[in-house]
Each structure stands twice: as structure tokens, then as C-alpha cells.
């Protein structure tokens, strides 16, 4: 029980420790986020609505990958493959078979889970760096398969992704609500973040209950975990399956948002981006995955946006025109690399750790030392 007025950060039993909404602060924060969610398309310009849409997709994928890598310790550079599977499942189930939204989206997740369950057994045999490299190989093999499976993916040309987007009275490809017309990107902003919220909730629940503890045990000392009776097969393969399901849903929504996908998108760089998201955000916390996804999606776009309005020194292609020897693309990539290096050197526990430290500072102020 929580008594009002008493210091809300003292925890007196397990149940309280595991609460999703431990105190008034968190509740207020969540309400604020909900308000932003509802008014999003009105609040942000068209450009930022799209960016946040991509950020939502990244959040779903990152949360999934975090379950696999951050919580179960199975390092995977193969996440791009599962995103691709999701996108093409959307094409097949949504476009080609015409299934409605509430069917094809979960089905994409199921396809992802199946793929993950197939790859999972590799993790039983290989560990650490070897697993990293095998998942690397998976990305390349996946790219090849996607490129050659022309009937589904359009081969080098790519394919449009236009599955049906109606859910009951809501038409996510664009409709009028309360007098204002919303286009596809704005409607999808809502859909994506709604799905993301469900995903985050699901992940939090997995993490704070028995499976979550088992996964963390596998991460910390898998031999010991096996000794005390945690089935490695179940949790390693299961972690792959779940994270791939998340990835597939993310990929499907990505395809719907962009409207077009090409096999070259599901490449090593995409996989590295997701890994970077969870590292920069903070491995091993769901919140960290969200932060990392938001940051790494928004930052390149922010650089682009700024470059359109400001003449940055040394940079070509910005407002100042083509003089400059560094392109915006270079700046984005270099910043990405520098962020990874910087975080790993100076704050390996990521943004989540920074946030926690900040909160702790505030809580203990003026005794923060």
C-alpha cells in the first residue's frame, strides 16, 4: 500500500517494487505523453510527424531487440532481417491476400516469431562473438533471398507497400476526424505509437515477471542458470522468437508508413542502427530502448532540418549551397559513429543511466553528493 504524502520512493514490498506506475510523478509523465500522443499531428509539423512515425517504428524494433540482447544477452546483428520479413509479410498478407489490418499486422508478428524460432537454435550452439558473426551472415543471406524473391519483393526494383489500413471506423490511410482532414502519415503516427505502447507494455510485463528474471539469469551466467533449472532452449529460442516478432511488426509498420520498400534496405547498417539504439539508450531497460530509438531516429533528421536553415561551416549541401567538403550525409554518419564511440567510452549504460542519475540528483538535492 502506498500512503499519500509519505516519501513515495520507499519501497516496502515486491508488489510495490514491480508496479508499472510507482508514483505520482510517473503517472503525471504518462498523462503528459498521452496528451502529446493524442494531439501529435496537430502539434508537430508534417516533417516531424513523419519523423516521429519512423521513431515509433524504431521503438518497436528496439524494444524487441533489447529483450533479446539486453535482457537475454544474445547478441544479434541480424535484426534487419526480421524487419524485412515483417515488411514482406505485410505485402503478402495485406496487399496480396487483402486481409484486414487487425489480421495482417499480428500475422506479420507471427511470421517474425517463426523466423526467430528457426534462428534461435543457433544461439544454443554458439555464443558471444561467433553468434554475432552468424547473425551478420544472416543479414547478408537475407538480403540475397529478398533480392532474388522477385515475385514477393520486386527484386532490385522494390515494391509498393499498400496494405488495407482500416480498423473499424478508423481509416489509417487518411480520413476526416472532428472536422480536420488527416493524411496517411498523420493517421499512421497514431497507429504506430498505439502499437508501440502495447509493445512497451508487453515488454515491461515480460521483464518484471518470471520470464524476465529467467532471461536475465541466462544473460548473466547461462551455465549456472541451466543448473538451477532454467531451460536454455526455451528462453534463448523464445527470446529470439519474441524479439523477431517485435521486429517484424516494426518492419510491417515501416513499410506501411513509407509506402515503398526495397530489398537493399534490410542491410547491415540498419541492423547496426538498432544495436546502437539499445546501447545508446541503455541495454537492459525498456525505457532505454525507447530513448535510444527516439534519439537515433530524430538526430539525423534534426541535422537535416538544421542544415536546411543554417549555413554550417564546412558542410556542403546546406543552406549555404554546395560549398564545403563534408556532405550532410557524412555529418549524419560520422555523428552516428561518434555517438556510439562516445557513449561506450563515457556512459556505457546509456541514456537511461543518464536519466536515472538526473532523477537521483533531483531527488537527493541538495544532498546530491
Amino acid at each position, binding site marked *: 500500500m502506498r500512503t499519500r504524502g509519505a516519501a513515495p520512493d520507499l519501497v516496502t514490498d515486491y508488489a510495490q517494487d514491480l508496479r508499472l506506475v510507482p508514483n505520482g510523478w510517473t503517472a503525471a509523465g504518462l498523462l503528459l505523453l498521452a496528451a502529446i500522443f493524442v494531439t501529435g499531428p496537430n502539434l508537430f509539423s508534417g516533417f516531424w510527424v513523419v519523423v516521429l512515425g519512423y521513431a515509433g517504428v524504431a521503438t518497436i524494433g528496439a524494444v524487441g531487440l533489447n529483450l533479446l*540482447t539486453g535482457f537475454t544477452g544474445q*547478441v544479434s546483428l541480424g535484426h534487419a532481417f526480421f524487419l524485412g520479413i515483417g515488411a514482406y509479410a505485410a505485402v503478402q498478407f495485406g496487399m496480396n491476400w487483402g486481409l484486414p489490418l487487425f489480421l495482417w499486422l499480428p500475422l506479420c508478428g507471427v511470421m517474425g516469431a517463426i523466423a526467430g524460432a528457426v534462428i534461435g537454435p*543457433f544461439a544454443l*550452439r*554458439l*555464443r*558471444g*562473438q*561467433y553468434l*554475432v*558473426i*552468424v547473425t*551478420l*551472415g544472416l543479414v*547478408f*543471406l537475407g*538480403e*540475397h533471398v529478398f*533480392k*532474388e524473391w522477385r515475385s514477393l519483393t520486386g527484386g532490385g526494383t522494390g515494391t509498393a507497400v499498400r496494405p488495407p489500413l482500416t480498423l473499424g471506423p478508423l481509416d489509417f490511410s487518411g480520413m476526416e476526424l472532428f472536422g480536420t482532414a488527416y493524411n496517411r502519415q498523420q493517421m499512421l503516427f497514431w497507429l504506430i505509437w498505439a502499437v508501440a505502447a502495447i509493445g512497451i507494455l508487453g515488454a515491461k510485463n515480460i521483464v518484471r515477471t518470471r520470464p524476465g528474471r529467467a532471461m536475465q539469469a541466462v544473460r548473466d*551466467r547461462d*551455465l*549456472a542458470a541451466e*543448473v538451477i533449472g532454467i531451460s536454455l532452449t526455451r528462453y534463448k529460442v523464445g527470446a529470439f522468437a519474441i524479439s523477431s516478432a517485435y521486429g517484424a511488426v516494426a518492419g510491417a509498420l515501416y513499410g506501411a508508413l513509407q509506402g515503398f520498400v526495397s530489398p537493399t534496405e534490410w542491410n*547491415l547498417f540498419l541492423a*547496426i542502427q538498432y*544495436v*546502437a539504439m539499445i*546501447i545508446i539508450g541503455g541495454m537492459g531497460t525498456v525505457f532505454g530502448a525507447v530513448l535510444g530509438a527516439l534519439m537515433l531516429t530524430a538526430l539525423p533528421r534534426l541535422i537535416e532540418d538544421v542544415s536546411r536553415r543554417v549555413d554550417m561551416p564546412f558542410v556542403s549541401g546546406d543552406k549555404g549551397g554546395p560549398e564545403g*567538403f*563534408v*556532405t550532410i550525409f*557524412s*555529418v549524419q*554518419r*560520422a555523428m*552516428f*559513429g*561518434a*555517438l*556510439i*564511440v562516445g557513449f*561506450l*567510452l563515457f556512459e*556505457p549504460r546509456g541514456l537511461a543511466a543518464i536519466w536515472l542519475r538526473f532523477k537521483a540528483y533531483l531527488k537527493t538535492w541538495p544532498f546530491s553528493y
Partner: protein
Amino acid sequence: MTKLLQLTIDGTALGVGYALVALGFVVIYRATGVINFSQGGFVLLGAYLTYNFHVTWGLNFWVSVALAVVIGALVGVLIEALILRRMVGQPVFAVIILTIGLLFVMEQSVSSIWGFDNLNMSDPWGIGTSRLGDFLFGHKQVAAMVVSALMLTAFFAYFKYSVMGVSMRAVALDQEAALAQGISARKVFAVSWAIAGAVAAMAGMLQGAGPASVELGISFVALRAFPAMILGGLDSPGGAVVGGIVIGVVQNFTAGYQPEIAPWLGNNFHLVMPYVVMVIILMVKPYGLFGTPEVHRA
């Protein structure tokens, strides 16, 4: 038969390139237990620096190559000292990602300085070819094999007979015992990175030789050296060489025969064949052909 032999020759030429890069990976792994994804960046540096010294500054070709190799080694040492040293004690996975971050920074630095166009290295081999009976030898290929062979021999001689080489092996075997013997692990790490940088730069130069071949895609050769490294065993330099050549030959054979025998596998399957081989090897022999099995205790 001619085709088979020609494919083998071409495959070996391709494979020694992989062998050089794989060797760099293996040397670093043996010493520090880290897989260095930024080898691709060193490969790029080797090619672009050679271009810069030889074409832009007009130095003699071989002098340019030597300079590029030396600078590659120095950059390796710098990275190790400034960045990798701070990652001691971090999970291995984090270090891998760090090296990936370094790779991006290196790639962008190269493209910022030298631009995005394909450049001509003006190497002495160009597109010259010679015929020996039914077989066609590209001058560049022959040069690649000779140079790689020399470099590899030099490396192995150093590794086996010099004091530092023995120290490296000692550190790889048991770091604490080596330290107890007075071997400076720091020096060993530095030398490992220097060697890796040097061989990668040389490999980069070989990749960049040829018409309009100095371009940013060269760094991807490092990605294809992974199967070579895994095949040979992550901690076996000899394995890296064997692995590199095997992968090169396999890739070339696939390129030559797959379109006829198994066209359903698709276009350019030879580019993923190395990974297929890698996955198969990992299932059968998880530590590669010559690698030492790791022992895990709870």
C-alpha cells in the same frame, strides 16, 4: 579443365586479399579478444593514402605504398592507445560496436577528404594481362599474390622468431602468466594493432589497384573476410590464410559454376556463398578449422 584451373587461379588471387584482411582480424583477436570491425576503415585508408601519395603528391609508387602501410600501422596504434584501452573490462559486445562506430567515422573522414568519385591509383599493373598457355594472368592478380605472399611470410617469420612475436603468442596464451614474465601487455596490444593496420592497408592498396578502383566500396572486402576468419579459426593466423584462400576459391567456383548448375539460387549468389560456408562450418566445427575451443565455466 581449363576453366577449373583458371577459376582456381583467380580464386587464389581473390583469396589472398581476404587472407590479408583476415590476418589483421586474427592478430587483434589473439592479443585482445576483440573482433575489430574497423578493419574495413584501415583497408580504405591504405587505398586512399596510396592514391594520395602517388597521384596527388607524385611520389614513387612503392614509396607511397610503404608510407601508406606505415601510416596504417600508426593509426592502428593510436586507436588502440586512445580508445580501446579505455574499454578494458567492458563486455566484448560493446567493444565490437565501438569498433563499428569507429568504422563509420573513418569512412566519413575518407569520403570528406577525397570525395565520392572513383579514383585512379595509377598502379604499375593497370589492366595488363599475360597468357601462359590457356591461362590468363592479370598482372594485378600476380602482383597481389606475390605481395601478399611476401607480407605473410614476413609476418610469420616475425611471429615465430622475434622476441615480440613470442611475446604476442605468450600474451594470447595466458595474459597473467606473460605479465608475470615481464612481458609488457601494453606493447603487445600496440604491436598487434599496428600489424593489423599495416596488413589491412596493404590489402586496401591491392584492392584499389586497377582502373578507377579507389572507391568507398573497398571497405566491404573486410566484411567478406569474416567467413575466412571464422573458417580458419578466430585465433589462428595460419587458419586465416588458409581460410582466406579457401573462401576466395569457393567464391570464384560458385561464380563460375552456379549460374549453370543451380540458377535458382539467384544472381550473384557467389557473394553470399562465403556466408553459407561460414554457417555450415560453425555448425560442424564451432571454433573453425584451426581455432582453439573455448572452455566455459559457470
